[in-house]
């Protein structure tokens, strides 16, 4: 019952947002697009966290996704949004498949730090490549959609729609996946690897798969971010980007994909809100909000909802 309700709810919200898209104030729509792009990367992280691994390197694939979209437009002459995103999926898939072979042997904080190291190496490489604009990055083409080229501000409506469909679509698939055999296998890996191996499932194989999937989702998010903001830069691979993703996951709690998506949206709003009310000390505000959430909602905002549901 509950599973169907969740899927239905996600589908309803998705349709509602796509329909509402053109009528939202433009700034709100943009913040929403960025939030959903981040949500995609964090959904990937959710997969890993369910397996007991926290990556401080999702930024690596977020950045690859963004740069793939950028380079596809700049050097390959592509403008189709789907082709640009596909480029990111392919690139991140290949790279994560290789790095995953190495990383699937690591756990806990070592997995976190190692994944961060790769992300920082990419940051270093991009900061040196003047052809790709060095630390300034470069601008991304205005996308078209399967041959249709919306004019002016309408492009952003379409990008928003795409972000909604992708984030919620991925959310629904992921929701099902977490309840499948492979999904439960990952929780088993988190709880006890050796027992999983006795059951005839290779823990490393599970981890490798999750790592690749997480990478592809991050690349999708990075691609959307690139199309939305029209610019990519190496700071997408900087450790603070990955840190933000971990924070969002924590904010929402890992109980449900809906929690991740809501947390991404709330986080983006908190960020612009603190920037607005306190331009001098917005970082301090952000830090305080973070601590308050960790202190009072250890299982994320979702636990608040669950608690309220229980109370009623």
């Amino acid at each position, binding site marked *: 019952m509950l599973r169907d309700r969740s899927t239905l709810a996600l589908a309803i919200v998705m349709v509602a947002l796509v329909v509402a898209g053109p009528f939202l*104030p*433009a*700034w*709100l729509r*943009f*913040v929403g697009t*960025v939030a959903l792009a981040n949500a995609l990367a964090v959904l990937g992280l959710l997969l890993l966290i369910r397996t007991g691994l926290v990556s401080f390197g999702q930024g690596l694939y977020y950045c690859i996704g963004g740069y793939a979209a950028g380079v596809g437009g700049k050097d390959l002459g592509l403008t189709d949004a789907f082709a640009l995103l596909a480029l990111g999926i392919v690139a991140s898939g290949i790279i994560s498949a290789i790095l995953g072979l190495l990383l699937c042997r690591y756990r806990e904080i070592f997995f976190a730090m190692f994944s961060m190291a790769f992300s920082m190496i990419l940051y270093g490489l991009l*900061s*040196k490549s*003047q052809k790709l*604009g*060095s*630390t*300034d*990055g*470069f*601008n991304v083409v205005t996308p078209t959609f399967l041959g249709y080229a919306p004019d*002016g*501000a309408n492009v*952003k409506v379409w990008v928003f729609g795409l972000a909604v469909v992708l984030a919620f679509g991925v959310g629904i698939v992921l929701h099902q996946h977490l309840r499948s055999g492979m999904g439960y296998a990952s929780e088993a890996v988190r709880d006890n690897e050796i027992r999983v191996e006795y059951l005839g499932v290779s823990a490393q194989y599970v981890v490798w798969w999750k790592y690749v999937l997480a990478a592809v989702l991050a690349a999708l998010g990075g691609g959307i*971010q690139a199309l939305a*903001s*029209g*610019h990519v*830069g190496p*700071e*997408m691979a*900087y450790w603070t980007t990955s840190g933000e993703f971990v924070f969002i996951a924590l904010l929402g709690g890992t109980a449900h994909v809906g929690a991740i998506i809501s947390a991404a949206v*709330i986080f*983006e*709003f*908190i*960020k*612009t*809100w603190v*920037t*607005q*009310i306190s*331009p*001098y000390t*917005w*970082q301090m505000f952000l830090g305080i*909000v973070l601590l*308050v*959430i960790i202190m*009072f*909602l250890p299982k994320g*905002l979702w636990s*608040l909802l669950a*608690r*309220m549901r229980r*109370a009623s």
Partner: protein
Amino acid sequence: MRHQHCCMPSVKHILCAATLSLAAALPAAAQEFKLGVVTFLSGQAAGPFGIPAKNAAEITVDAINAGALPAPYNKKGIAGMPVKMILVDENGGPSKQVTEYRNLVERDKADAVIGYVSSGDCLAIAPVADELKKLTILFDCGAPRVFEEKDYKYVFRTRPHGAMDNVAAARYVADILPNVKKVNGINQNYAWGQDSWEDFTKSMAKLKPGVEVGTSQMPKLGAGTYSSEISALLLNDAQLVHSSFWGADLESFIQQAKARGLYDKQLLVLTAGEPSMFRLANEIPDGAVIGARGPFGVFAPDNALNRWFRDAYQKKFDSPPSYASYVMSQAILGLKAAAEKAMAKNPKPSGEDIVTALEKLEFEAPSGTVKMSLAKGHQAVQENAIGRFKLQGGKATIVDVKRYPPECVNPPEGTTAAKWIEAGFPGAKC
């Protein structure tokens, strides 16, 4: 249950604030000119650039609202309206800045935006400004790329771009060291440092063919300690060290290089050294070549606007204005000049009118005349000035100043800075 009570307000608060700001955006307060000002209020660039620029914006806007500026800016307000400044921190990277820019324009209904020290931010903001059709003035970023890669209608840069810093520095070096054979460099490992070094070495190669590069050190931005780099510079006996360092990195390097005796052997060429010159008067060696990225600070001409600017700044903030202060003030004055030109045709000028008026405009600023002559009238050129440091009676001064006219150190319309340097400065009038 207790927990629930303490957290609910925080969530509610956030939602409330979001709704409130949404509501606040709806009725447009018509009778003031809302000016978005974006600059670094935190992070490394806040001290040397962000805060001096914010300070300059404050005194300039206050003077505009009081009608206290010297002619030709003695009328109150911009386009007849008092100016209200909305301040935003530039820290956080281009993606965050795109979001904040959209919020400024679409939520807070800014009438114009002046901002951006970082070239990455400028690059990301420019297409968004055109998309939203909002007059946007890039006040400080240096990369020539911004207008070389694309034409923009609503985007302007009221300061010269960065190529002239190093073209002028190379010309100056060629003058004072006619026998220069070998140059070293230490620049920060990011776009600005890389571009500066490339412009400098390529210009040197044209002015003094056969000049060799000793070593080019590229430490990370904000590294702070340069012990190994200084050893490498010492081991490569060039006649000079070129550096586009700024802020705390520059000051750290100057001190550490002094302790190691680097200056005894190699001449220091600091293209962005002016703001640190007063703070480190006792550390910088006499004779060091100093630039201010244009006719700003000590290089600014003696005119009524500059006298007002220096006095007002010194009085309010107890320190001289740095080049970031100058370029901020001149961005606001450029906007005011354009608005006034537009008012001659239409007493209540629209944003579009001001944009048209700012194209190809020539206006006066504390740094002298600014000509919006490149990139179809969207990119300013100015003269540049370079000099040498001298400690006189315990005070930091600049001697042997050479001024380079705008046409001497800026590429002409229709070419890029890199190509122009590569081709040996065709059409330069010195």
